[in-house]
């Protein structure tokens, strides 16, 4: 099992079961985690699936590409080190225990 925890802006922890091959955004959607809007459905065309990755996990995730970096550069509540678009992170078995927080506002 790949346990992934989403922490919503109110501090609530949503522990979900990830599946390798799905995106982090899709894992959240399947578990009905609130706050990840993902309006473009994972096409890396909006920035409404923005999450902050737990600092301890940042280095273990694949790096963001230019498109993702550019979108994030203009999103709200961005932290250069920890901000990611959850639709661009494909879940792997190595991500068991991953923790990410969802900002209060998307877009």
């Amino acid at each position: 099992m790949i346990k992934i925890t989403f922490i919503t802006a109110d501090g609530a922890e949503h522990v979900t079961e990830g599946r390798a091959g799905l995106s982090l955004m899709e894992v959240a959607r399947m578990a009905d985690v609130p706050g990840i809007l993902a309006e473009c459905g994972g096409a890396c065309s909006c920035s409404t699936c923005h999450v902050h990755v737990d600092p301890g996990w940042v280095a273990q995730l694949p790096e963001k590409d230019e498109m993702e970096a550019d979108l994030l550069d203009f999103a709200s509540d961005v932290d250069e080190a920890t901000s990611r678009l959850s639709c661009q992170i494909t879940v792997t078995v190595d991500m068991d225990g991953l923790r990410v927080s969802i900002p209060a506002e998307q877009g």
Partner: protein
Amino acid sequence: MSHIAVIGAGQAGSALAAKLRTLGFDGRITLIGAEPVPPYQRPPLSKKYMAGEMALERLYLRPTRFYDDQDITLVTDTRVAAIDADSMTLRMEDGSTLSTDQIALTTGADPICLPPALGGDQPGIYTMRSLADADAMAPEFVPGRRVLIVGGGYIGLEAAAVAASKGLTVTLVEMAPRILARVAAAETADWIRAMHKGHGVDIREGCALNGLARSGDGPFTATLSDGSTLEADFVICGIGVRPATALAETAGLALDNGIAVDEFGRTSHDRIFAAGDCASFPWKGQRIRLESVPNAIDQAEATAATMLGQGAPYVARPWFWSDQYDVKLQIAGLNTGYDRVIVRPGDKPGSQSHWYFRGGTLLAVDAMNDPRAYMTGKRLIEAGQSPLPEAVADATTPLKSLPLAASIAA
């Protein structure tokens, strides 16, 4: 117990039903869809799903158990034939009835088909709207086959990109003088046309389809308005959609380019509401109808709040996207009424943005592989701010420090 029926189980219907629960509605919710599957995302149908890069399961908006968990009765494969507005009763196509207290119409839009007079009623001609459309068409996408695409809007162009990428021979005909005539400036059309030509797509503009003939299982012969003919193994029709208003008509609702609603999602009947592609609504002094996912979600959620007596006016923040080949096109705003387009080269090769102005007011931005320009334009438009056009045109002025026009005092 109060009962709300949501008719139409697409993006808007699904968002509206879910929002009713989030806002605390504890009555009965019935979500009724004509298609045999749970609510799913339509945009990938003409993009990643059609390209075979996205499994069916990933199209679904929610896991099936979501509807049980939320106590939403999802009724699929069912069409509502009529609404009796006086008694708030739905009559299904199978003759059964359902009594409700409030109704939300999220019926979406239906693709316009080629008229039978042009040969549009033959097998081998497809529209691109539903999962069933995409699945029916999939076996045709074999390298070397010839496809004729009728219509040079975003759907037709996305289909052309998937087909060309799969090694099909693609011809696209557009009746108007140029592609994207209804939705984008000539500058954007030029850019997109050049991209498709680079991938071998034969684009013929100002060229109407006069007829499609087919003998048996053989290829189609298309007759075009320039007098030429061409052969195609199958045809995709992307000539637009019409808001699905038939049910609203049975209820006697006011229509105006779709089901007319106010900024709260209210129709002309006090217990019937509408949202998404099927609904036209007031926006900046005009009445508009948007065919887009963000509008479907946002308007549906605002309407759900209205239905529970918690409504606030819905202010649309239009944005759109399209994926073609390796190009991501992102559009912020609505360009209706523009009188000037500023072209701004992007930071990277192949990236560019087109900024639509009316006078000094920024209306919209088309960004090709230029998410920074898109995000900048979106933020400015939503804040009601306009950058100076000459600064936009100067690529050496960073996006983050574009000088703004002095706001025009109201």
